[in-house]
Structure formats: C-alpha cells, structure tokens
C-alpha cells in the first residue's frame, strides 16, 4: 500500500520535528548543568562578586583546643586545623587557597581589623586566598610571614607546623565571584515593577472589562495596550532613559538606577498583568455582580468586594508571570540600570539583575561561561517553578465557578 507508507512517512516527520525541540531543551539543560552546576553553592549565593582583601586578628580569649581529624583534599595542618592547596587564578597568578578550616582552628576565631569594621567576626573560609600571616615562634617573638616567604601550600603548612606556637593575625583575600548583589537587585526590581504595575494594570483591566462600552475610544485603548506586547524590550529601554529618567531625578537619582529599571519594567509588565486579570474577570459569573448590585451596592463596591476577590487567581497568575519576566529581562535594563555589577545595591544606585549580570560577564573581554551557566541554572529553576505554579492555578481557575 503506497498510501500507507506515505502516511507513515509524513507522521514520522512530525515526530522528528518534535524530537528536535526536545533535543534543544535537553542540550540547553545539559550544557548549563555540566558547566554551571558545580558552582552553585551557598558561597555563590551569599558572597560578593568582587573579591576583597581582609585583615583579621585572632580574638584575645581564644583557647587552643586540639583539632579534629581531616582527610579531605589539600595539605592539612593537624596543629592549626587548616587545609590549603595551590591554585592558579583566572588572572594567571599562583595562590594558596583554603580548602578547609576546622571549627576549633584559630583561623575560625578572628575579628576584623579593617578600618570601619573593627571587631566584626571574621574567619578564613573555603576559597580564601592567604596573603600573609603573623605568628608567634618558639621564642615568643611575633614573626611576619609574607606571601613570598610562604612559597607554596606545602611550605606554608611546614612553617606553621614546625615553627609557630600561636597565630596572631592573617591577611587574606575573599574569593568573590558571588551573586548576592545581583539577587538583591533582582528583588528590588521585582518589588518596584510590581508595585507600580499591579494597580495600574488591574485598574485598566477592570475598566476594559467592567466599564468600557463598545466605543471607538475604548477600542483604541485596547489596541494601544495590545500593541505594547509587540514592542521589543530594548525599545522599552530607550523609552526608560528618556521618559522615566526625569521622574527618578525627582527623588534624587543622578544616573541610571535600579529604580529607573523597575519603572521601565513596570511598563513592560502592564500587558501581562492586564491580560491575566481580564481573563480572570471574564470567568466571574455575571450573577454575582447582579446579586451585589441588587443589594444596593454601588458598582465600585461590587468590584472591590465581589468581583476582584473572585479574580484573585488571575491576578496571582499575572504577578507570577511578571516576576518571571523581570527575572529574565535583560535588554531593557542594559539602558536603564547600567551593566555595572554592584555588590551593595540600593534603589538609587546602579546594579545588575541576575540576567543582566550574565550579559555583563558574557560581553566582557573574557566571557565567564561557568558563572554564566550557574546563574542561568538558577534563573531557569525559578522560571520553571513559576511556570508549573501558573499551570496549576490555571487549572483551578477553569474549575472554580462550574
């Protein structure tokens, strides 16, 4: 049967086409996982992007307690409870890096001597680079051990084990490469954009669905909002710096800022918020509105007390989709929040969201694929979870008023 073969062939092609998209999704996940997964840990989430130098001295009332056993990587000093190894940094410098610090180690009981934060608890941690150490020798003299004198990891441990009877202070460099600042920036952006976009969006949806009669002006309003969906996000960025920048200046912004990025995102989110709210309003049965009005409630009372509470799922969907959009947005922010990674962001400072941070580290001279993959994984995890929740809400919404 020729026809049967032809049919099978055509069906086969659709299977192949579908397999292609699965392949792409799989390839993306595989690439990101192999390149980025090993970077994802508490350090990545909690530390600064820029490495910083720290000075700390062992606290006065530290009492030496014998260290526990350690059999992991690196060269371990059983006496001082610290394991180190030799590494080469991305700037091609040989450094001694900490791989383990025992809880009882003096290096774990230090306080900062950096100007401005004296007395703040400090400690060597995994990834710290040791720069110099002051220790007490057998004669009770305080000795200085510079980075050059240390040589390599083995030599450093040798000196500490053989000559030191006490540790005084230590100069070290924190590892950096963390994304804490970008996480905070992202949260700021989510807060600002939703705060602005939700009331405007919900009110617009209410007008379009509850008030607007069929008229030319209302058709035009709808057209205007629909057209926003098709505007590329980079163009929103251009709009942000021209139209919204003066608004942020009113509250004291002197450059592009996170606030400006948030305001720009608020406008980007409007169509999403409006359409998901409206979809939920459509599902609210007319009989509930009639019931409320027949009890002498005004139209706005009906909307606030009956209609909007019934539409809460749709509004929630809008919020979630909005969060997803903010997390994923990059092009509009390049113009409005700048591409400078900021470890200590505030509303009026510049900074990068997680996505924008990826753009920054990928568009530099030396693209950092591993960090970019790690951040991508974090973003994808959030976005996928949001997707699943939205789907569940959608199913509930479809059943809610049957």
């Amino acid at each position: 049967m020729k026809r049967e073969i032809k049919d099978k062939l055509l069906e086969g092609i659709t299977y192949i086409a579908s397999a292609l998209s699965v392949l792409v999704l799989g390839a993306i996940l595989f690439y990101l996982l192999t390149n980025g997964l090993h970077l994802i840990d508490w350090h990545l989430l909690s530390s600064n992007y820029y490495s910083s130098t720290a000075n700390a001295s062992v606290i006065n009332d530290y009492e030496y307690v014998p260290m526990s056993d350690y059999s992991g990587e690196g060269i371990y000093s059983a006496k001082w409870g610290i394991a180190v190894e030799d590494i080469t940094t991305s700037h091609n410098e040989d450094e001694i890096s900490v791989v383990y610090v025992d809880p009882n180690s003096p290096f774990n009981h230090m306080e900062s001597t950096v100007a401005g934060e004296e007395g703040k608890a400090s400690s060597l941690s995994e990834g710290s680079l040791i720069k110099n150490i002051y220790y007490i020798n057998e004669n009770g003299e305080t000795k200085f051990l510079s980075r050059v004198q240390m040589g390599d990891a083995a030599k450093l441990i040798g000196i500490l084990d053989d000559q030191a009877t006490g540790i005084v202070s230590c100069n070290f460099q924190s590892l950096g490469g963390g994304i804490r600042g970008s996480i905070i920036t992202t949260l700021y952006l989510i807060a600002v954009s939703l705060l602005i976009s939700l009331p405007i969006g919900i009110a617009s949806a209410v007008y379009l669905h509850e008030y607007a009669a069929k008229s030319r002006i209302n058709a035009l309003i709808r057209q205007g909002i629909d057209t926003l969906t098709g505007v590329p996000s980079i163009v929103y960025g251009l709009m942000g710096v021209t139209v919204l920048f003066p608004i942020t200046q009113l509250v004291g912004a002197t450059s592009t800022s996170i606030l400006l990025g948030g305001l720009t995102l608020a406008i980007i989110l409007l169509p999403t918020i409006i359409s998901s709210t409206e979809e939920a309003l459509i599902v609210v049965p007319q009989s509930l509105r009639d019931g409320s009005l027949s009890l002498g409630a005004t139209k706005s009372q009906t909307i606030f007390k009956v209609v909007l509470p019934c539409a809460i799922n749709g509004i929630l969907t809008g919020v979630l989709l909005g969060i997803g959009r903010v997390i994923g947005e990059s092009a509009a922010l390049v113009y409005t929040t700048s591409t400078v990674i900021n470890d200590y962001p505030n509303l009026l400072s510049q900074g990068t969201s997680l996505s924008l941070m990826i753009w920054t580290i990928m568009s530099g001279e030396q693209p950092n694929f591993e960090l970019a993959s790690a951040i991508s994984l974090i973003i994808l995890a959030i976005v996928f979870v949001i997707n699943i929740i939205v789907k569940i809400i959608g199913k509930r919404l479809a059943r809610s008023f049957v």
Partner: protein
Amino acid sequence: MLVNKKRVKRNKSLDKFFHGFFMAMALLSASFIVIIVLFVFAKGISPFLPGYEYGQVNIISFLTGSLYRQDQGIYGIGFIVINTLVCSFLALLLSFPISVLTALFIAKIAPKKLGAIMQSVVELLASVPSVVYGVFAAGVIAALIKDLASSLGITTFGGSSMLAVIILLAIMIFPTLTSMATTAIKAVDKDLEQASLALGATRTQTNFKIVLAAAKSGIFAGAILGLGRAFGEATAVAMVAGNKLFGPTFDLFDITRTLTSTMLAGLKETSGLDYDIRFSVGLVLIAVIFVSNWVLNYVKKKVGNN
C-alpha cells in the same frame, strides 16, 4: 430601612471617583505606546536636525551607509538593516516548518499524553530568558559552528557568525510559532475533518491537506509575531553576532551586525552622538517592525482570501 443618606452620598461620589480612576489608568496604559514612539522619535531624529550639538549627521548616508565605525564617527546602517532582515527571515524559514510540524504533532498526531508533554516542552522553551539562550548560543552553537567551519577549512571568529545568529533566532522564535500554530490547528472545525474522512481520505492526509490549510491564517499570524520577536531580540543576538564594521554579510560563517546588536555595542563607555545615534537605530528598528508587520498582514489578507 438601613439606608443612611449621608453614607449613600459618599458612596455615590466614591463610585464616581473609582469610575474615573479606572478609566484614567486604562488611558495611561494605552498612552505608553504613544509615549514610546513619540519620545524615541524625538530623540532619534535629533542627530539629523541642523543645530545638533555634536554635529549634524546626514540622514541619507545614515540610512544607506555600509560602514559603521563608532571610533571614527561614521554611522551608516543600511547594511545593518539588510543584515537584520536577512537573519530574521532565514531564521523564520528554518523555524517555520519545524514548528508547524511540531504543532500538528501536538494537536493531532501524538498520543494524548505525549502531546501534553510536548506542549510542556514548548512552554518551557518559551519561558527561557533570552540571555540564557545567549549563553547557550555562545557556548554550544558557536562552538559547533567553529568546529564545522574548521573541518571545511574556514576560519571563524570563535564561531560568532551569521549562521549562529540565524540558528539562535530560529530556536528563540520556535515557541511563539508553535504555540500559535497549535492553537490555530486545535480551532479547526471538526466537521471539516469529518467531511474529509468521509470522502475516504486517511487521517494523515486530512491533517496535512485539510487541517493545515484551514489553520493557515492562525499559523501565519504566529509567523508574523515570531518575525517581530526576531527583529527585536537583543542581548542573545549580540553575544554571537560579532558586530562587523561593514557589510552587508551574506556569508554564513562571517560575523554580522544587527540593529539590536548595534544598539548594545559599547554602550557602557559612551556618550554624545554615539549614545544618541542608538535612538536613531531604535527608531529604524521600530520602523522595520512596523513596516514588516503591515506588509505581512497585507499578504496574509491576500492569502486568506484565496
């Protein structure tokens, strides 16, 4: 009677206030599109006007030029427009058949469970942010192209190339095309299918001949939407475009430059004309999207009428 006259009056004025408030918000939402176009226009047109503070730019040479040297102050974007059009259309050409077939698979051919899984795959692809696609393009697509090119004896700029842009865009517009096509195919009248089946056509024949034909308007709408997205895609494209200084580029393995990658290139340390000219490029981008939308919708109407 429970009616409190004072309260009724207050309720009434509150009601009026909220009516006005809702309407004002809707008007505000709708006005943003006008604000965007107006302000980008005003700022984008300024370098071509006499008396522009950093030296007037000739609009003709801007629009038709084939050299873009920020360092020398030469801004010609004619070739960039061509590059953008070529890359986007080729991406659409690549993505269109795959997405239509996938949509047909999801809506008609796949067993129910498999169809639902595929739908989720498409939704997940749709939710991947563009920078993540960019990382994937720079890390995987570009690397593959580099290997492919060197096996053909061609050297590339680390894999950044027109081909990489096209494949990237094809992947990025795939979810839009597929979900629009799936919706269109699912909306096809069941009677139409049954009529075809009753005439002795097989399911597959019906799917390919009748269903696709009936859904073509929706599928085409998806293509228009996808193309718009391809034109406007910025960060991901900029990661693999390479930003060539002249053109147009027609060699798949050569680097290229699109409107959006131009707008992003070297933004960090720039000011004056080089900053303002990005608004002009943005204005051209809006024009390209608007004109292509208009033309394609015209074509769609023509095709739909036949």
